[in-house]
């Protein structure tokens, strides 16, 4: 019984890993097609903690504002206080397995944090960084 359970757990873990490789791989190819150059984890780390000023409210906003500076931790929505599940795949295997979901949240969160859409380069950098966590 435990053998079957272990095998099942392993299978599910593998499928999550496979799904993530698919989703991230697909998006990276798209971003390259849109003009992105070599993706950089280092650039992403800087981007992730850079302060952005929201002119409308005067607030300083960073990705870490909601996601914290440790992607394995649970984050918190800056306005509502609602818990945000960890982004790190090592802490949360469901992350980054759905292309539509990834793009939707890039859209919303870049607009909130930076006041604009992220460039394909920025998005690709972030993806290669997150998959190392």
């Amino acid at each position: 019984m435990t053998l079957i359970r272990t095998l099942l757990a392993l299978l599910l873990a593998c499928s999550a890993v496979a799904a993530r490789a698919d989703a991230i791989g697909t998006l990276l190819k798209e971003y390259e097609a849109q003009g992105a150059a070599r993706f950089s984890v280092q650039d992403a780390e800087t981007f992730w903690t850079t302060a952005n000023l929201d002119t409308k409210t005067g607030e300083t906003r960073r990705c870490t504002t909601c996601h914290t500076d440790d992607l394995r931790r649970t984050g918190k929505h800056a306005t509502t206080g609602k818990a945000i599940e960890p982004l790190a795949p090592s802490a949360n295997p469901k992350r980054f397995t759905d292309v539509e979901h990834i793009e939707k949240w890039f859209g919303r969160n870049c607009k909130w944090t930076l006041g604009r859409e992220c460039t394909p380069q920025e998005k690709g950098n972030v993806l290669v960084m997150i998959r190392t966590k």
Partner: protein
Amino acid sequence: MKKLDRVAAALSFVVLSSAALADPRDVGPNTNATYVKECGACHFPYQPALMPARSWRKVMSNLKDHFGETAELKVSDRDALTAYLVAGAAETADNQRSRELLASLPPGDTPIRVTGILYVGGIHGGFLDPKFKGIPNVKTLANCAACHPKADEGRYAPRVYVVTDELFRVLKGDYNVGF
């Protein structure tokens, strides 16, 4: 004839008792998984019975500027969720909570926040009312689940909190309430 009377009596009993059962005191849980997933991603997924239909229509018609953020959905999702919210809104819901909150609204008032409904703000005491003294405490009051452990079931009677100024300062982080 006698048998028919008995059947009629039994049926009436069933209908009447289920009518009584169908009149709970509170709003009950969300029944739309997409709503919980999409809208509950950023904030507590307020049950439809907590606001009148006109409020839901207003909110859903302006997701581009949803309390300062963009919450746009693809059209099919937005339409489906609007339908869900309107169908389950306070006027059509059959529970005590909805009746009370509707009764507290000035005629024609269209709140866009659950926390902006007088019944909700009033129960939480003036100092938590978003409009009280012009201090926006929405950050705390909006997160029902912070103090109501059964909020996701639509049961707001159970609550765990200690009402101190300090607690709410802690819950809000470093927001300075000023008193």
